[in-house]
């Protein structure tokens, strides 16, 4: 499904800033909030893995039913290494990458595992 990706701060993400080495970090950040109708359309339920992709790349995260719906066609990911696999580095010559309003695609990927950040970084950057 085509969607517009928004990334940003959530209170849960903010609460684990000092604890990025904990499991809570993955739990709070490696997610994608979807509109309930969109979830129905995709045939997924809360907790299923989804693949989010954009011109910049792709990432697997857990689907979460949005509490800030309705916003059909808009998906939301908390800022962090998972979201940044798919945000756009385009700064339009002002320094600011495109963290919001990124054209993206979301699809079910129930058989995929959500990586922790060391796994994700190792796989992406080889370091």
């Amino acid at each position: 499904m085509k969607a517009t990706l928004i990334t940003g701060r959530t209170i849960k993400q903010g609460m684990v800033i000092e604890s990025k080495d904990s499991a809570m970090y993955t739990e709070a950040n490696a997610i994608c909030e979807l509109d309930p109708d969109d979830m129905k359309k995709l045939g997924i339920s809360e907790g299923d893995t989804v693949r989010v992709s954009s011109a910049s790349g792709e990432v697997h995260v857990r689907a979460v039913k949005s509490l800030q719906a309705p916003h059909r066609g808009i998906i939301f990911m908390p800022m962090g290494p998972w979201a940044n696999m798919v945000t756009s580095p385009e700064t339009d010559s002002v320094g600011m990458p495109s963290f919001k309003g990124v054209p993206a695609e979301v699809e079910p990927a129930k058989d995929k595992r959500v990586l922790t950040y060391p796994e994700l970084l190792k796989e992406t950057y080889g370091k």
Partner: protein
Amino acid sequence: METHTDVICPFCGTLCDDIEVQVEGGRIMDVLNACKLGTAKFMSMNKKHRPLKPRVRGENGFEETTVEDAVERVARMLVEAKKPLLYGWSTTECEAHSVGIELAEEVGGVIDSHSSVCHGPSVIAIQDVGYPSVTLGEVKNRADLDIYWGSNPMHAHPRHMSRYSRYPRGYFRERGQADRTVVVIDVRKTDTASIADKFLQVEPGGDYELANAFRAALNGVELPDEVAGVPKKDILQTLDIMKEAQFGILFFGVGLTMSPGKHRNIDCAIKLVADLNRYTKFSIMAMRGHYNVTGFSEVLTWQSGFPFGVDYTRGRPWYNPGETTSIDLLTRGEVDACLVIGADPGGNFPRRAVEHFARIPTATLEPHETPTTYLSDVVIPTAIAGIEVEGTAYRMDAVPLQVRRFMDPPEGVYPDREILKMILDKVREIKNGA
């Protein structure tokens, strides 16, 4: 048990200064008045696994080392680089900024902060069209209309509404909430929108159009039936609320700066506010995120003349967003070393930028483990400003406060400013020796 009052919370730009912290035996027992975000930061002091020793990347992963050795490695990295980037600064005190800027001058590097990836576009807009603003106490005492646009304080600045805007009683607003109207404009019905008196749901990327529609209508232009997903009726109604307010304030967040249009969205919002001053008192304020992101732009501006993205490679300060800003420098592969202070670009920069970061020599001053420390070649744990270090921080409205020290840093862990000073001294030593 010691009780520390009037503690300033070193988390977000709201910079609440009424926190009470109870400490016993080096552990935080209780935190009063703080929000979830602030409480989590204070309570994280009790974590068992806090890295205390500097570490360097060896053949088999990280190896522990001494502060002296780590400092020397960082100094060499900076001296050997043609164009190092010194990035971060928003979660440390201004005294550290000051040393950092001198270091950037000394090594001929680029110094940049979180502004670049949060409210940089707001700063650019301010440079284009100005910034009619006020301090937050003015809002508390006078405002009868608070607008939050592209900002979700319930998540990002949880006490903003209770301290300054919607809830408090003020000198001219004795009834508090009953005297005030809250309007939220966002692409989703956020938790902030849910408690607003009026919510306008704008299409993603439609902020510029909507702001322009407000301005157009204010200046007597007929609107189409709908603009950016918002019905004309709602736009006109909201505009009336604005014009009829005695004192209005528009708080805007990164919902405007990070969306298509970027600084142009803010340009338009600022012009709208300036126009509204023909009818009533109206002001605007950027909801700055990190607790001292404002402080860094203040210090860098008074010292260099420019607020972020300052390039010293030619010995003089040079500022040109899009050229001298971190994301551009990294994605174009223009910097050949990076020192990070109190920031997490490894987690919060887009992938293409991090790819270059992972390729070049990097060092990080950071108390915790983060994606950035994971990717760095040298990591020096530092003391935590606002808890273990006192120093200046600037609130989102640029009000300066001195954050407090009420705990001792662990043995051998130094404040950022001291580590930076050691690096600066070492850099001079290396340069003079060569």
